[in-house]
């Protein structure tokens, strides 16, 4: 994994210190944080100013029972894929998914069926659009190189899709 600047929530932007949503929240909130990171990253990609009021977002979605909706919204912020799906945004997107999967596994959240379907769709789109997008930035002095085909967003999104299928017991 290459070095990625941590878009830690609450970082100083243009001299204004935003309040932190706090990384110490219980596990299910980490998913949200990842999602926010992602959203921020996508916005950054579009050269839109990063001054989102994270706090506002948090209060909006973090109420229990609604956060799956929040997460799906955030994931959808990858659209349009051809523009926003780049290595950096993918970095946040996959973290977001992994965190979500962990929560589902631990039965911390119960995702509604339609949300799961949406997630799968997002991953399918990523697979289609991400064939030529490297998943990690190649480090020039890295000794063992990964297979070029494997370090693509397409490959990793398939991996995530398989994980989701495993969790929802798709084959049983």
């Amino acid at each position, binding site marked *: 994994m290459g070095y990625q600047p941590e878009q830690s929530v609450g970082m100083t932007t243009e001299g204004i210190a935003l309040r932190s949503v706090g990384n*110490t929240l*219980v*596990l*299910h909130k980490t998913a949200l944080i990842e999602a926010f990171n992602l959203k921020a990253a996508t916005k950054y990609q579009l050269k839109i100013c990063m001054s989102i009021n994270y706090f506002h977002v948090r209060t909006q979605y973090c109420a*229990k*029972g609604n956060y799956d909706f929040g997460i799906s919204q955030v994931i959808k912020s990858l659209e349009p894929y051809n523009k926003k799906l780049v290595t950096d945004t993918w970095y946040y997107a996959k973290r977001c998914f992994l965190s979500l999967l962990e929560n589902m596994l*631990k*039965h*911390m959240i*119960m995702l*509604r*069926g*339609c949300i*799961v379907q949406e997630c799968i769709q997002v991953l399918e789109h990523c697979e289609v659009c991400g*064939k*030529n997008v490297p998943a990690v930035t190649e*480090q*020039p*002095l*890295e000794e063992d190189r990964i*297979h*070029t*085909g*494997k370090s*693509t967003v*397409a*490959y990793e999104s*398939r*991996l995530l*899709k*398989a994980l989701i*299928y*495993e969790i*929802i*017991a*798709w*084959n*049983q």
Partner: protein
Amino acid sequence: MEHVHLAAEDEDDLYSGYNDYNPTFDTEDLENDVGFQQAVKTSHGRRPPMTAKIPGTAVARPMGTAFGDGVARPMTAVLAAGYSSAVIRGSAFDPLGQSKGPAPPLEAKNEDTPEEKIKQLEKKVNQLIEDSCMAHSHGDLQLSLEKAKEAGRKERFLVRQREQTASADHINLDLTYSVLFNLANQYADNEMFAEALNTYQVIVKNKMFSNAGRLKVNMANIYFKQRNFPKAIKFYRMALDQISNAHRDMRIKIMQNIGVVFVKMGQYSDAITSFEHIMSESPNIKTGFNLILCYFAIGDRDKMKKAFQKLICVPLGIDEDDKYIPPNDDPQTNLVIEAIKNDQLRQMERERKALAEKYIMTSAKLIAPAIETSFAAGFDWCVEMVKTSMYVELANDLEINKAITYLRQKDFNQAVETLKMFEKKDSRVKSAAATNLSFLYFLEKEYGQADRYADLAMNADRYNPAALINKGNSVFVNGDYEKAGEFYKEALRNDSSCTEALYNLGLTYKKLKRLEEALDCFLKLHAILRNSAQVMFQLTSLYESLEDPNQAIEWLMQLISVAPTDPQALAKLGALYDNEGDKSQAFQYYYESFRYFPSNIEVIEWLGAYYIDTQFCEKAIQYFERAALIQPTQVKWQLMVASCYRRSGHYLSSNFTGNYQKALETYKDIHRKFPENVECLRFLVRLCTDMGLKEVQEYATKLKKVEKMKEIREQIGQQGSRIVYIDGQHSEGVYKNRDVLSTSRKKFPAILTAVAAFFVLVSNSECAKVVKRPPRIRPCLDLPEEILEQMFGRLSAGMFSAFHHTLQLAPLEKENLTCPTNGRPTSDKSRLPVNIHSISPWAYRISYDATRYPKYLPEAYCLCKGCLAGPFGEESLQFRSTPVYMPSVILRRTPSCGGGRYIYTENYISIAVGCTCVTGPEKERESNNSVLDTGELKRGIDKGDESQLKEN
């Protein structure tokens, strides 16, 4: 920065900085440049930030005093604050914040605060839960339960801590939920159902947990495991009530479970309702299959058809195969496809597809015979259905299945016809069908046809290993092993995991006597098929041919550990041990073999022979009786039974008459069935003589007649054969001609060639020791001593000869001793042998009979009438000396002649071996105590027989 640098303000030497050498440019001293070395090592490709200053010309110059924000400025300074020229430099344009220096180190965590402690504890609990799950996934259920329990303990401690620090409202509910849920799960997996149910109950009852309601599903699952079906259904329904419609997948899965429980309870209509609902809401393969099964169970034809149609319409939700075929133009896409063509998702998709195909095939096979009048029509309907669905490729497989069903019903013609239809289809199916056809013909031993279809299959698909094997097989049966080997090798080249080819190749090498190569093949095969009994069997037989019995036994042992109930293998192991001379091991394995397959004649024979060898004739009887049952036309077995009765009669005197009687009856029985059997007649004559029965005459006449007939026949057949067959050897010859074939019985696809055959040479020691009669030629000579000794030795089996031997060692000078009149000899007792020292003393004499073997026999005779039981050791007539007999066998010469030699028969006698003292004087008997005259057992010995035989 240099531009704003004014010389006037500088009190320092203007040029001092230029002498200092910027280390960045010091290429000569790179090795000592820590920064550079670090950059190389860490492959950051850049110097650490410290050295990466903008390479100014005078960077290393000492800073001006007023540099910075002026804090260092002395209070008493004359200069006005903020007006130093240095200030301009200090607040210089610095957009990158480089002058700020590194960020202050993060504040160390204060570990002592209670909040921090609690957080640590939470972390630990989480870690324990994860450990527990990991242990579970590795299959270590015990450990995972331990971890789960420990997590539970820690969590309770945590809650107490929270309460103490009065932050009870911060209790981490999710953590509690995780701990309890994991614990319940681990209990359930360790089959501690009561504990698991309790724990689930705790979670479900707690209203604080959201979503806890669905854990009722888990409880229901436990009830299901306990086979408490009504309760399981109740809980599934409760769970269903608590799960909102938003979680449709979950609801569907629960309904599926309810359906399955109904099936288990045999309530098919309820199950059908459940399954039908699912199929209309969100169809899936499994439910579709279950639905078909339910309709099949209640026998509803139309519904079965409908359910099948539904099943094949279920969307699989997987990608098309062509997605994974590289388009060949774009290297990047090719690389991606290479990466994904066998990734996890692809494997899952394949699995799903295979599952779907399996369900469809199974249900088609199941319903085909039920939905139409005939199974063929049923299959046709299924094929039609499948052809219109997305599983087109299954249609051909179904057709082949139809053929196989024909085969199952032994309707070979139909099967062949069905398979022949494939001749026009595309090459892959054609090759498969032709392969099957070829094998069919091969099974029917129509090798010509088999060869033709093997060729066809090969032409249709040269890379079809099955076709190549079939071709090889048909060449093999024609005896062209070299060529067959070539075909097998080609099959192996096409598919290196083709075990059939490897196996057949091994067999071919075996046939070609290239044993080492064959061994190689089978060892390789063994590496692939670790537990194939067949391969081990081949290895055994190979090692046997290589004369390495130890290896053979080892492999056979392995084979038996895989197939412990294979009677052939057990018998084989017995035979191997027998060859090694380990009779008791051999017996053990033969006995095992007999237990699993009691009608193997070789095994029975061996066991019978073994018992006779070890002098347990009675036990041998049951085996020979069984053999007689299996082969009722073989007189041999029945003779054996009779012979066993006869023998056991002698050795166990308590059963004496009973068994003798039985022997007689058995012989009579045999005679009724095989009136021309000489041996039987001969024994009948002898038994009748021994028992003093009247039928003797009758049997003797018959015997003569039969013998005569035989003689005539033999004279016609082979003139002047002089060979004396001893019966046992003769029958052994017969076995050799019959070649005992031992085949492993398990099915091995595509292999029926070269059945391993080997001889089980059963040591056939027992048989009536009657010499056969070749044509009579005078004068009759006696048998050579060695042959007699051999015959006699086999009969007496050591016991009698030992006695004989002992007596020969004893001094014989005290012959013609008489009863001591002056009482028992008291002096030097120790030197006297026991026979003289006894109160019923006896002595030996040697009897001689030229027509008997052994010619010389020692016999005991009592010296006194009474016993030397008086107070001074004098003879007392209150007691009586009486001889002790031992049953024995001798060979007796008969007057008949065979091959110029006398014929000897076995003869059972009782020989006195000593005397003992019994109470009560003898009244009627006035004998001289000689054994030969005393009474009841006399007939065993002697002339009586002879004279009677002569009379005949």
